[in-house]
């Protein structure tokens, strides 16, 4: 009985400790966004304070937060659409049409993980510069799509493999062409996979800093780039940057709850099944 109580206590201690470790930093930045300068600088952090919207007003009116927001929305929506569209076609092609190569290609896709972003960025910057595309949306969209594609293909392949073969054979006997099979049978069944891929791709693009930092200019900065400029200044305006950070991260946290179970599936799906 004693050991049981002890183990229950230890369990609560660890799970509760990890809870605090996770939540406190996030709670700090969100509460800072509603605090006055004085409250932000108090040690230990004030728990009860009179909330103010002043930081939000400052973040929205001074600087180009609104523009960065729209830029981020455009870049992440476009690259997510391209990743999912191209990725779903490629996955269908690999699984249904060339099943022999499926596993080889799935493994080759992992090779992309060995290419550091900076290794892609340096030449991409030079190429965009030569072609006059530097500072347009093309750079970040192209880079984000290329990074997302292997992941999306990997995830969608798993969903297509889960469809019973009988369904496709039956459709084939009924005289459906392969593309009809894709549109009428496969795509409705893999909808959850496509939705999850879309959200995850969008999330990556929304949060990504390095490519956007160098491939965009003042007019096309995305949110992370805007925030990095706040952080980079000598004295950080914590109220304003906390407000900007909160507005940037909260939508993704909310969306994230829907795709939580897929965060791991795209990565380890094959390893779990095999």
């Amino acid at each position, binding site marked *: 009985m004693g050991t049981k109580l002890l183990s229950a206590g230890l369990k609560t201690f660890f799970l509760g400790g990890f809870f605090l470790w996770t939540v406190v930093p996030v709670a700090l930045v969100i509460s800072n966004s509603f605090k006055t300068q004085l409250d932000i600088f108090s040690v230990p952090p004030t728990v009860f304070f009179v909330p103010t919207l002043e930081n939000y007003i400052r973040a929205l009116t001074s600087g180009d937060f609104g523009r960065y927001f729209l830029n981020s929305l455009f870049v992440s929506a476009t690259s997510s659409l391209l990743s999912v569209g191209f990725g779903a076609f490629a996955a269908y092609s690999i699984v249904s049409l060339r099943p022999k190569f499926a596993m080889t290609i799935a493994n080759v896709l992992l090779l992309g993980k*060995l290419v*550091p972003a900076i290794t892609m960025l340096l030449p991409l910057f030079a190429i965009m510069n030569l072609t006059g595309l530097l500072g347009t949306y093309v750079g970040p969209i192209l880079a984000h799509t290329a990074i997302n594609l292997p992941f999306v293909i990997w995830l969608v392949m798993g969903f297509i493999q889960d469809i019973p073969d009988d369904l496709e054979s039956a459709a084939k006997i009924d005289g459906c062409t392969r593309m009809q099979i894709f549109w009428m049978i496969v795509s409705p069944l893999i909808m959850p996979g496509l939705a999850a891929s879309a959200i995850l791709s969008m999330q990556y693009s929304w949060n990504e800093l390095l490519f956007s930092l160098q491939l965009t200019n003042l007019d096309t900065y995305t949110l992370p780039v805007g925030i990095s400029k706040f952080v980079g200044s000598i004295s950080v305006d914590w109220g304003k940057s906390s407000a900007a950070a909160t507005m940037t991260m909260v939508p993704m946290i909310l969306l994230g709850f829907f795709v939580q179970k897929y965060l791991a599936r795209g990565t380890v799906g094959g390893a*779990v099944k095999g």
Partner: protein
Amino acid sequence: MLSNASKSRHDGDLLAVVLIAPAAAVVIAAMLLPLVYAFTMSLFDFRPGFETQGKFLFLQNYLRFFQDKIALQSLLLTLVFTFSALLLELLLGVGFSILLLTVPVWVAKVLRGVYCIPLLISPIIVGLIWRYMYDPTFGIVYFIAKQVGCDQFFGGLQQPGWSMLCVVLADVWETTPFVMLCATAGLAAIPGDLYEAARIDGAGWWNRFLRITFPSLRKVLVVVLIIRGTDAFRVFDIIYALTNGGPANSTLSLSIYAFKKGFEQYEMGYAMAISIIMMVVLSLLFGPFLRRSRIRA
């Protein structure tokens, strides 16, 4: 019959190529072409925008790396960062995924949801949050250090040695949930009767972990090792936000170093050489795991 089958397979080939072409085009344009370009230009000394005036150096940029003290230090620091972050994340991630199996399902669900929040936040914001917490005058980390009586020697982001630890902790905060989720997926695939049978045979929890849990998780862990390890080795955002490589280059990762060389000191050729050396080191480190992770169809 026979000709029909071979005809449809031929059509299948063409369709397969057409369907895969857009994805391949993007990867070629954004990854393969730039890589070829990077390798070619890494043989030159040039400033961004002045490619045609570059001076051909052949492999000198690569030789320079191995004589460049800062570069070698940066390689070492990147390895230290990768291994310490990976070790902590694997221990915590696997530990908590197992711990969550021992509580009621709804509690585990809620906790898992909360634990995942850092994973959804942009690394630059993670950097912003931790920079606030590491602030020497009003940061909560210093406050806690004072409470437990080690504020005298805690150096935070200002002191080499401590700065690396601080950066690693921020990274652990952000990506442990990822390891936890992957491990959870792996654990869910283990049939429950296995444990039941082992318990009947009188195996204790340690034996059950060693003989059932660990071997079943091994495949997942190899994949996690590749994904997290390669990500950690390429670390940029968090360091960019927290220390930008300082103080005294004590957190200078290779990505940051190559970035600085290329975009701040305009030594593009050398920066590309550094980034290609990075890729080679990454392949040497994780390539062997990649081959082992091959999944049998």
